[in-house]
């Protein structure tokens, strides 16, 4: 799977759906007709609402309808997601071999020993950041039992530094499949010797665990033998000026959102996530049959975003997973807009391709909804900016719209509240609203580009930035 017509159709399906929704609203407005044009001294009449030169707010019933629609839609998606998750938990269907009910039955009354942690760190020329990553592991309150650096086609001192730090090194052999390929080789070698509670953590070489991460994760995995994975919550490192602050704010908001969802996972992040061997073995067995990929591979090497793909794979097999608030990691950020563009285009493209590979299933509903949501947001934000631009370029006086200004204040408050934990710099950037609005617009352009690329079947390109050459950081791809 993966290169077929459906794969290319994903972008078109999303574009048509969100475009259709916007068009529907547009025509509904047109159809209501404009109230008689009322010429005021300095102004215009706006369709159904006289809001432009009036302090008058839209009609209450329209306000209520719009608000109710938005809230019902978001609540509907959330409820549906909960329902699907609960059904999956209680499922005894053999198609979901990782469902808690099945796992519980298979492990009832069996003690497979205490939870031990084996860490795999895929690394491709990561000598700059690897020592700090290993140090963060060794200083954990619950130290990992084993740390294995998976050195993939390294031409620097990655392997030597790892040995110096006293950890094991697994070198990939003839690997052409990047990070996923290297991890598959390492897991094929490692998994047969792992017991039920000998969990495997996969973490990036440019990431540092906060203290307490492993302790919290081990406690969770000890308390619930049906728990198949624990994902980390990532925060951005310091530095990189305003581009860094944009990303830090974004990550803080994402973590807050996961907290509000009580740890229910969107993506088991590649920066640091822990898996039960049972989960990884089941995925490897299921590939090529119930889930996409090559049988025997834990990671799907065809996917651009292997962490997102593995999350959907585990969910499709019924696996229970969580991102506890205590499991936090600090990860490297993209230093400029050029590298950020490349990273986000890969994420976006990967997410779309994964949806194409899995199709529309109950487990992928949340991800489809997310794509539709972003897509509609692109249209809404573009229309807003167009409106402001047209008015600025067609009028010559100050015009205040109290009602809409009020809404602007609400948006500002939301930005500040959601980024509050980031400290004063995060709050300052948030309260100014417009810089983040343009950052959102930047991400929207990436999103549109991703949709266009996948629809035209363009080959996705990899960009691996070398620390040594550019002074920039990158993830192992």
């Amino acid at each position: 799977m993966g290169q077929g017509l459906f794969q290319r159709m994903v972008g078109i399906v999303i574009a048509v759906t969100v475009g259709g929704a916007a068009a529907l609203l547009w025509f509904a407005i047109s159809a209501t007709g404009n109230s008689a044009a009322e010429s005021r001294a300095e102004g215009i009449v706006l369709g159904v609402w006289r809001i432009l030169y009036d302090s008058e707010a839209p009609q209450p019933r329209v306000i209520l309808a719009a608000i109710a629609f938005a809230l019902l839609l978001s609540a509907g998606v959330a409820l549906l997601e909960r329902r699907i998750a609960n059904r999956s938990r209680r499922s005894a269907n053999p198609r979901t071999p990782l469902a808690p009910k099945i796992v519980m039955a298979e492990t009832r009354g069996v003690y497979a020993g205490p939870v031990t942690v084996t860490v795999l760190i895929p690394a491709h020329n990561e000598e700059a950041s690897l020592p700090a990553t290993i140090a963060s592991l060794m200083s954990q309150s619950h130290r990992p039992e084993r740390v294995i650096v998976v050195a993939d086609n390294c031409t620097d001192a990655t392997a030597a530094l790892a040995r110096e730090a006293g950890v094991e090194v697994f070198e990939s052999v003839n690997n052409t499949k990047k990070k996923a390929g290297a991890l598959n080789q390492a897991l094929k070698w490692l998994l047969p010797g792992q017991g039920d509670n000998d969990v495997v953590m996969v973490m990036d070489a440019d990431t540092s665990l906060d203290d307490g991460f492993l302790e919290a994760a081990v406690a969770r995995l000890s308390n619930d033998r049906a728990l198949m994975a624990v994902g980390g919550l990532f925060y951005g490192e310091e530095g990189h000026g305003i581009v860094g602050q944009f990303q830090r704010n974004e990550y803080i908001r994402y973590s807050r959102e996961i907290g509000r969802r009580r740890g229910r996972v969107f993506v088991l992040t590649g920066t640091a996530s822990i898996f039960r061997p049972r989960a990884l073995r089941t995925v490897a067995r299921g590939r090529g049959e119930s889930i996409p990929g090559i049988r025997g591979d834990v990671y799907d090497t065809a996917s651009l975003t292997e962490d997102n793909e593995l999350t959907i794979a585990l969910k499709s097999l019924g696996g229970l997973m969580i991102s506890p608030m205590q499991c936090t990691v600090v990860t490297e950020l993209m230093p400029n807009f050029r590298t950020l563009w490349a990273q986000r285009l890969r994420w976006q493209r990967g997410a779309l391709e994964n949806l194409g590979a899995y199709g529309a299933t109950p487990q992928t509903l949340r991800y489809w909804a997310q794509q539709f949501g972003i897509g509609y947001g692109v249209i809404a934000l573009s229309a807003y900016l167009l409106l402001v631009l047209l008015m600025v370029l067609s009028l010559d006086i100050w015009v205040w719209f109290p009602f809409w200004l009020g809404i602007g204040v609400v948006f500002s408050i939301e930005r500040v509240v959601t980024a509050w934990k980031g400290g004063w710099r995060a709050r300052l950037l948030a309260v100014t609203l417009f810089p983040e609005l343009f950052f959102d617009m930047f991400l929207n352009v990436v999103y549109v580009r991703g949709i266009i690329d996948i629809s035209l079947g363009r080959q996705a390109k990899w960009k691996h930035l070398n620390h040594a050459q550019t002074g920039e950081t990158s993830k192992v791809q």
Partner: protein
Amino acid sequence: MAISAALPAGILFPEELLHSDWFAVLATFVAINTLMYGALTIAKILPKLHPGDWIRTRNQRSETRSIHPDAPAVNEATDFVNTRSRQGPGSG
């Protein structure tokens, strides 16, 4: 939303543009979207409600889920509250 006073009338477009039907539709389209996103924004500011917590159900598990077969069965809600002790770091 405010319009800059520094700009002369019709800096790029004639003011008639703002009287056109399609502009009225655009403004209304934006207004409705703004309201919808405004509602979602307020929902994001407010603390999230978990109605399930208000109903005292029997969340007692019928059997332990621990890796230790002889561990006591725990209550799901209590289990969750116990794990919310520490918050992650910020970046400021």
